[in-house]
């Protein structure tokens, strides 16, 4: 059929099964918005900032497993969205982001709201396109969705000049894609898999090192079975929270800079790392030369560039972790879980020596208590998003996650301002669950305008602001490594968060006691409108354990034991 470029965008969305688009209009994208107005197949959510649109699309994608879609205009609309693209790129989140561009005839003339968008997005997207003719648009859009979700997922940016959205051309979405140069590996090499299984069978202290790639590959349930059948203990990265359920006996905990003592010790003592969907991030490994020093490494990942990038893999397996683990499960009989009995005991001892905990030794509520309490009250019924800072680490440490896609956080880029819009996207994707955003008094102000989006669209995100009157994470580093010089991190001057929420038509609570917190959370869940629950927490609490940047994993600063002082 002969339709305009703008109509093609709509038709492609419908063909891809898109049900929610996050965005913000402007001159260069108006033709497409005109078509959005005319259709009723999907919902458009108007965020109040383009950065929030992309984060909302990320949250939507992470919670649903589908490709997230955002739409923005040229120039400032696009530049506002760049942080979101970079965030999605770092965390391998599949997105298609459509931006308007000035008409072809004006490109390169410093036209009003012109910016070289593909030039900017090149380094923070998996792929990008500048569409120069509407006849290419069906293929480009189809490729964009395919590239975003296949292989190692990531954001794809499509920049469409205004005249191209008006141009009429043939639309056929049934075309076969012919991506001769893009063929992601999905099956692991059977010989390598066999060798890896043999290595596991021979190991004395093997350890699963589970990463976010497992969630992207929808492989958590295969991994759970694999862990169960082998009896091998497991550590999770921050991104992998929820792959195993918190009550799984073989789950030691989270590893890395703020990982538990037992997890980091297990990684330091293991003789065989079984890395699944991981990339050996520096926040996970600490000092590389000391990381899993005595261990061989099995590394399964979809991205060949991740393998042996930082840590040499003795058993590299390129493939979709779901397929590879399924193949491994077929040979699981060769592995005798009895062999690891004493290793499991060692780990139990690590855990008894320094359990992951906190002390309730001040009048003020401890931030960790809040996270734990939400876990007790809402548990599996909530999806948990976070902003960036101490609160984020406490959420990762103390929330009792039960399933994959329950935890949504900006890991690789660490973007303050991610949490609230992401939680809006999460709620749009999974309305039956309560959408919680753990945030800080710093972070929440970085996308606070989303109160308006949430009120208008009746998206009842509950933002729990762990208010320590500090840019707490930076303050922690200053306390520990800069001799307590708290440069520009004291947030004593603050808005009235209750009035702020109310000003937009949301609901606000300010709580200082545990009883008040329970009551506020219960009320917010029942009221079912967007809420701020500001919890006044202990100001000087530090996230522990902590591996100082560049230090060895086993060399942790630990929580002082009670009575140590």
């Amino acid at each position: 059929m002969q339709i305009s470029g703008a109509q093609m965008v709509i038709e492609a969305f419908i063909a891809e099964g898109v049900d929610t688009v996050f965005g913000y209009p402007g001159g260069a994208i108006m033709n497409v918005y005109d078509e959005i107005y005319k259709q009723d197949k999907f919902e458009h959510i108007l965020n109040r900032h383009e950065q929030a649109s992309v984060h909302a699309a990320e949250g939507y994608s992470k919670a649903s497993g589908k490709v997230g879609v955002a739409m923005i205009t040229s120039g400032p609309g696009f530049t506002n969205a760049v942080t979101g693209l970079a965030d999605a790129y770092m965390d391998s989140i599949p997105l298609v982001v459509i931006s308007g561009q000035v008409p072809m005839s004006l490109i390169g003339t410093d036209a009003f709201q012109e910016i070289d968008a593909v030039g900017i997005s090149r380094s923070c997207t998996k792929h990008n396109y500048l569409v120069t003719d509407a006849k290419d648009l069906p293929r480009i859009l189809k490729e964009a969705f395919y590239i975003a979700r296949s292989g190692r997922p990531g954001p794809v940016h499509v920049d469409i000049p205004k005249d191209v959205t008006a141009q009429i051309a043939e639309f056929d979405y049934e075309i076969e894609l012919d991506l001769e140069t893009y063929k992601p590996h999905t099956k692991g090499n059977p010989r390598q898999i066999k060798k890896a299984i043999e290595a596991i069978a021979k190991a004395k202290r093997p350890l699963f090192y589970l990463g976010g790639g497992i969630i992207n590959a929808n492989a958590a349930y295969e991994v759970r079975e694999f862990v169960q059948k082998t009896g091998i203990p497991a550590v999770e990265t921050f991104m992998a929270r929820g792959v195993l359920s918190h009550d799984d006996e073989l789950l030691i905990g989270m590893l890395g800079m703020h990982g538990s003592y037992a997890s980091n010790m297990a990684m330091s003592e293991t003789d065989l790392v079984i890395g699944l969907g991981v990339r050996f991030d520096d926040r996970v490994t600490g000092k590389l030369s000391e990381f899993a020093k005595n261990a061989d490494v099995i590394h399964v990942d979809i991205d060949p560039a991740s393998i042996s990038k930082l840590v040499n893999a003795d058993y590299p397996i390129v493939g979709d972790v779901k397929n590879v683990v399924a193949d491994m499960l077929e040979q699981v009989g060769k592995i005798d879980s009895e062999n690891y009995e004493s290793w499991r005991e060692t780990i139990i001892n690590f855990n008894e020596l320094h359990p992951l905990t906190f002390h309730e030794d001040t009048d003020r509520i401890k931030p960790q208590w809040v996270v734990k309490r939400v876990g007790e009250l809402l548990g599996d019924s909530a999806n948990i998003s976070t902003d960036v800072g101490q609160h984020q680490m406490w959420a990762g440490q103390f929330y009792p996650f039960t399933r994959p896609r329950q935890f949504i956080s900006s890991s690789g880029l660490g973007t303050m301002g991610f949490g609230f819009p992401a939680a809006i996207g999460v709620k749009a994707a999974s309305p039956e669950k309560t959408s919680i955003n753990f945030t800080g008094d710093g972070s929440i102000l970085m996308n606070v305008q989303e109160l308006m989006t949430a009120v208008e669209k009746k998206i009842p995100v509950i933002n729990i602001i762990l208010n320590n009157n500090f840019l707490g994470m930076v303050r922690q580093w200053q306390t520990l490594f800069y001799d307590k010089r708290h440069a520009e991190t004291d947030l004593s001057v603050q808005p009235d968060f209750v009035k702020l929420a109310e000003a937009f038509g949301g609901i606000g609570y300010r709580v200082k006691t545990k009883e008040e917190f329970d009551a506020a959370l219960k009320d917010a869940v029942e009221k079912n409108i967007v809420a701020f629950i500001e919890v006044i927490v202990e100001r000087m609490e530090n996230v522990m354990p902590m591996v100082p940047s560049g230090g060895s994993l086993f060399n942790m600063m630990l929580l002082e034991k009670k009575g140590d002082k």
Partner: protein
Amino acid sequence: MTEENQRRVVSVIVINEASVLSRITDLFSGRGYNITSLTVAPIPESKYSRLTIVTAGSVRVIEQITKQLHKLIPVLRVYEHEDMVEKEMAMIKLPISENLSDINTLCEAYNGKIVNAGENTIIAMVADEPKRIDNFLKAIKRYNPKEIVRSGAVALER
């Protein structure tokens, strides 16, 4: 040669489309790596082009770059050359008053000759291994070259 300064030749076969070159060079510039030379031309009767990139740097980083090159959507193949035949061309503009037969003899030793003669200047060309081109350019100095252009290397695996 130190780890840090390995000379490497990489060939990349890519779909011949807009922006593909910047996708590739971004991988180098993003790491602060310099490209010593770069040649690009279409591969006959195909939709592909072939690039030859000469760079210098640590083995580890260059390995990382080549892996990232593989990941780019329009990249079909990447060759990290080990055992290759490598050639480069150079053209030199010289005053016509110099000893032309000497110049011609010198060029011949490097697979070249005088290819153009004008009113005041001549142009000579040579084609040889990049190292030998270096030597040639040293030797030609004494004839007062006015302008020199090197093509950058092209390479084929043996």
